[in-house]
């Protein structure tokens, strides 16, 4: 009896769960660890039940199928268990570790900055570190400064790490599968507000290659570039712009590192205008990097200055009025596009 392979409409949380489940089934070297990813470890009355299945429920059911030997609740010791995931990867396992919020990078930075990302290089190519770190990014949950950050530029700034951030359920499944199978350390960024977002997802094996951006909507007047939630913002903005006669092409970056420069440049060559939407802070950020790359390699195609919609250079505020003002949204994107399109050329 084969597992159903028909596409279904499911949430991003379920798509991630499915990817992990199928990969763990196929490869006994995969273990998964994190704080409360099953929850209630060794609580007698729970028997083999989980208490949480992860703080966002993404890992629900894994402990039932794979047991607590492969689904490991950890103490609140990010330095230890992210480091252990790196160490296990370097010695033959293929671990998935959950860093609950990307802000907790602060508690385990050494494991990623000085160990996981550099072992292969420092050892002259004689080590591989096939670890996947799933982590939550983004605002919108009123979670305040430490739990709402978008740190993919920091991760991407570290050579040796790959950085992935899907914007829909199908890509979530396909990119997570690719990340788990990848022999390098991959930081897999999941947006806190997107777990319940539904989309059609292929059943069975589904792989989306790391490093390939998607043209999520073809268009001719302006290129809108986003990643994770900002790709969704870009698509929504494009709909509004279409009603006003502006035909926007939307590129969903999907992977931050390695960066798919060719897809970006091809689009800019076609449209001559670029607006980048990025929830991270702007200084030395993703938007500024891409703007720089396009200025460097595609300046002659640009008919207007590159527009950027980013978070301001401040921590994420708590109060909803402030957080809403802080975050990019489709309205801000539409305004930025109009400004870009009104520029002379």
């Amino acid at each position: 009896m084969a597992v159903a392979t028909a596409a279904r409409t499911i949430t991003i949380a379920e798509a991630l769960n499915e990817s992990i489940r199928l990969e763990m089934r196929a490869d006994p070297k995969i273990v998964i660890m994190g704080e409360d990813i099953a929850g209630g470890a060794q609580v007698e009355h729970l028997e083999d039940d989980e208490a949480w299945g992860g703080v966002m429920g993404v890992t629900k059911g894994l402990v039932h199928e794979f047991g607590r030997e492969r689904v490991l609740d950890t103490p609140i010791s990010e330095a230890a268990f992210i480091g252990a995931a790196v160490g296990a990867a370097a010695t033959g396992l293929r671990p998935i570790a959950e860093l609950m919020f990307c802000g907790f990078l602060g508690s385990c930075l050494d494991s990623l900055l000085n160990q996981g990302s550099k072992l292969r290089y420092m050892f002259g190519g004689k080590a591989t570190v096939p670890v996947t770190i799933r982590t939550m990014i983004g605002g919108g949950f009123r979670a305040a400064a430490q739990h709402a950050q978008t740190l993919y530029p920091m991760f991407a700034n570290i050579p040796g790490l790959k950085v992935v951030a899907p914007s829909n359920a199908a890509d979530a499944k396909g990119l997570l599968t690719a990340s788990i199978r990848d022999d390098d350390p991959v930081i897999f960024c999941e947006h806190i507000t997107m777990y319940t977002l539904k989309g059609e997802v292929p059943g069975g094996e589904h792989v989306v290659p790391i490093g390939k951006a998607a043209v999520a909507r073809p268009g001719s007047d302006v290129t809108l570039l986003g990643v994770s939630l900002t790709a969704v913002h870009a698509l929504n903005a494009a709909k509004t712009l279409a009603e006003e006669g502006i035909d926007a092409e939307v590129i969903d970056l999907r992977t931050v590192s390695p960066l798919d420069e060719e897809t970006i440049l091809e689009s800019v060559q076609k449209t001559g205008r670029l607006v980048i939407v990025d929830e991270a802070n702007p200084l030395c950020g993703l938007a500024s990097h891409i703007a720089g790359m396009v200025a460097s390699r595609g300046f002659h195609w640009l008919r207007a200055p590159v527009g950027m919609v980013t978070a301001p250079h401040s921590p994420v505020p708590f109060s909803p009025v402030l957080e809403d003002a802080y975050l990019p949204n489709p309205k801000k994107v539409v305004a930025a596009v109009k400004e870009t399109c009104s520029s002379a050329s």
Partner: protein
Amino acid sequence: MPIDVIMPKMGMGMSEGKLSRWQVKDGDSVEAGQVVLEMETDKATAEMTADVDGVISVVVAEGEVVDVGTVLGRIEPAEGAVVKPRAPGAAEGPSAEILQANGIALNVQRTGEGPAVVFIHGLSSSMELWTGLDQAGFQGRTLISYDLRGHGRSEQTPGAHTLRKHTADLVALLETLGVEQASLVGHSLGAMIAVELAASRPESVRSLSLLSSTAAFPQETRNTLFELASAATFGGMEGIADPLIELTFRPAFRDANPKVVEAIRRSILSSDAASIVAATRMVAKADLRPRLGGLTCPTQVLVGSEDSLTPPDLSRQLAAAIEGAQLHELPDCGHAAPVEQPAPVTRLLAEFV
């Protein structure tokens, strides 16, 4: 508070019925036990009686075909009137009762006299699985069926389902009912519970009838069950009702009995997803093979020749591993043998228990 007169469900296959005739008029005074209306299904006709003394108001007109559960009329109870339990043999059949056992509420139905035969349904089903069997075939037996925890009208319990918990439920239920020894008839998951009880408390089990079951699922089926559990975890019962039905019934049966299938689909959809998820994961992981060698009671194994969830091979292995077990393969039969082939199932069980 008015007491509703509702279109009863007479057997698992029934999804709708026709109100053929009112025997009383709107506003009439009725007495408890008095026949108030006649109804019919494609299989049978029946009379319905008032549950309470009072004044009846008509809601559904004669001749209408309505879904099971539809309110047909309402009786405003007379002052001081007491709602009377239905007499056995009334339209809804033997009455079920809620009993406390093993710390939870279990929905139990009991009928007949004599040595006990306990019917244990399978995953995402209920005691209604057995309604197609002909009770007349079991003269001289007390027939007991019940809803497993988290199923039917039994209590929904949080947390993992384990065979240990299900077996403890059954042990406690037998104690509550004063049954010292019983013949166990289990379907699928129910058969696993029966095996577990027979292995752990042989003195309580007179015989085992294992329908459409296995001691352990092959890995591929386990994966399928885990997929179903995950789909229900995230999406509720909606996403798994159809796959469950496809696993349970032959295509030919589905085509020939759309109303039966529809009724079962509705019953699955109304199930508690968390309970079904927990039970599905338990079934997927179950491995009773180490228990089989120790079984000593007479055992029969029944399987549909076209069972795709627990194919005949699994039952052959099961029978081969239990000393002296008889094996019966039923032609033109899928996984839900008691529903698809009630007559031969009744005959084989009645001869054995």
